[in-house]
């Protein structure tokens, strides 16, 4: 069990995160927020790249800062900008990282083959990575994060640069992995979180805005999302009055998906709609 206990992180006088309390058990946790909200800072504290200004992060009751290497042995991490040696092949690089992770040589070789197969890179495992596309590098990054079969897997933007088919493949992998471990996903891609996360954590104004299970998240906008079709000439004034989630052109008219909090303000002809996670995201961060 990973516990974030009243953690505040400051850089000089600037507070990035304030009084963060979180608990991570088994399952997939989705960290969702716009850029600059402190997601990556939180992740870097979870992997001991940064330390809290105040508060503690505990793993099974012990401070991860004092656990040091014994905590990192249980950790798998994919950073947002995954660095690699351009002249290395995936096999060489994974072998190198396997050594740094303290894994035994014989076990690493077998694991490398399994993982490169899992991320669909078996046919290029001995090719130099300088010729790889962004998506292929990302797949090497995902493979290295799973090299030590970690109890805690922390992935910062894991599906960035992957095509839809690969994203689907990785979503399934993350779901399978989460059965007996903690998987923490930070991403902008809401559909990834929507399809794999058991719990969703939203960060807003340097604090936890909500930490809830996936299905409860839409309760934030329960009975508040509607759709309506308005003529073009009224579209601009409609946009001024309501918070618009999306719009599309439809037979010479504009179809809006919007939020209306008060029933008395609801325009005639509006039809209720079920809120999606994307609606909640857009609504919660409407001022940012």
């Amino acid at each position, binding site marked *: 069990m990973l516990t974030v206990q009243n953690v505040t992180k400051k850089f000089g006088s600037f507070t990035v995160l304030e009084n963060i309390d979180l608990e991570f058990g088994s399952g997939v946790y989705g960290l969702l927020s716009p850029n600059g909200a402190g997601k990556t800072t939180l992740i*870097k504290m979870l*992997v*001991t*790249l*940064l*330390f809290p200004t105040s508060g503690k992060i505990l793993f099974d009751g012990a401070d991860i*800062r*004092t656990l*040091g*290497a014994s905590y*990192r*042995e249980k*950790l*798998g*991490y994919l*950073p947002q*900008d*995954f*660095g*690699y*040696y351009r002249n290395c092949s995936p096999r060489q690089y994974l072998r*190198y*990282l396997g*050594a*740094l*992770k*303290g894994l035994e040589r014989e076990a690493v070789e077998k694991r490398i083959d399994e993982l490169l197969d899992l991320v669909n890179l078996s046919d290029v495992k001995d090719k130099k990575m300088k010729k790889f596309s962004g998506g292929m590098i990302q797949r090497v*990054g995902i493979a*290295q994060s799973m090299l030590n079969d970690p109890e805690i897997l922390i992935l910062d933007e894991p599906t960035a640069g992957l095509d839809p088919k690969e994203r689907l493949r990785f979503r399934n992998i993350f779901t399978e992995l989460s059965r007996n471990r903690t998987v923490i996903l930070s991403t902008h891609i809401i559909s990834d979180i929507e399809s794999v996360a058991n719990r969703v954590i939203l960060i807003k104004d340097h604090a936890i805005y909500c930490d809830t299970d996936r299905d409860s998240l839409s309760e934030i906008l329960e009975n508040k999302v509607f759709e309506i079709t308005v003529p073009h000439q009224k579209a601009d004034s409609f946009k001024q009055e309501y918070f618009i989630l999306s719009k599309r052109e439809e037979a010479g008219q504009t179809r809006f998906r919007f939020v209306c909090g008060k029933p008395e303000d609801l325009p005639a002809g509006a039809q209720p709609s079920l809120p999606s996670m994307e609606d909640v995201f857009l609504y919660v961060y409407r001022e940012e």
Partner: protein
Amino acid sequence: MKIDYPSPEERRATIRKITREGMADRRSLFSDFREMYRNLGLRVIFYDMADVFFIAALVTAFVLCGLAENFRYLAGQRNNFYAKLFAVSPTLYLLLCLLGFWKEKLSDTYDVKMSCKYTVCHLTAFRMLAFSCAGILVNLAAVGIFCTAGGVPDFWQVFLVSTSSLFLFSVLLLWSLFRAGGLAAPTFAAAAWFPANLLLEYLFPSGYGRFLVEMPLYLHLAVTVALACFYFAGLKRLISQQKERILC
């Protein structure tokens, strides 16, 4: 109801067991390094460092050639020779460390490596120790050749001047790392080493060299040992990784 209460001996044994199992093993720096060497091997510890070795060796060879070229002149002026020797002794170590730091930073693999069991800090600490050994060996060879060829009688004193200089620079380099975290401070420390020595020589033209020449051998040895102890303590602190964004 009667409840059995443990005897004082049972209590002491239980406390010993709990503290033994609960407290982290306090390992020495050298047992940490031994374990690293066994688990990683030199190929992993010095991975992708071939160009660093090449450049450092080339520049050191130039410096040694320069010193050899002017040896007869310098050997005639002991004060001047000691001052110059003190300034150039850490050259190989300085180049290996600084180029190594920057190479590591430019590889963009810092975040991944810092989440591994053996982090960039572990690798850097091991390399620094290896580089200081290499520096001492090269200095030993150079001093040996100079003393034999030039007939300088005080081999041990010359060797200790060179070794204390190397350890002094090593301590300064580590201190600058801990003070600022990034690479600007160690780079500045390295860049300032030679000008600072020249400045001392300029400000105290006879005093600086004479101080090094006249310092008794046992004092040279004491200073060298003290600096080495500071240095090893600094390396141990580096692998304990209690500072964020170090070497980044």
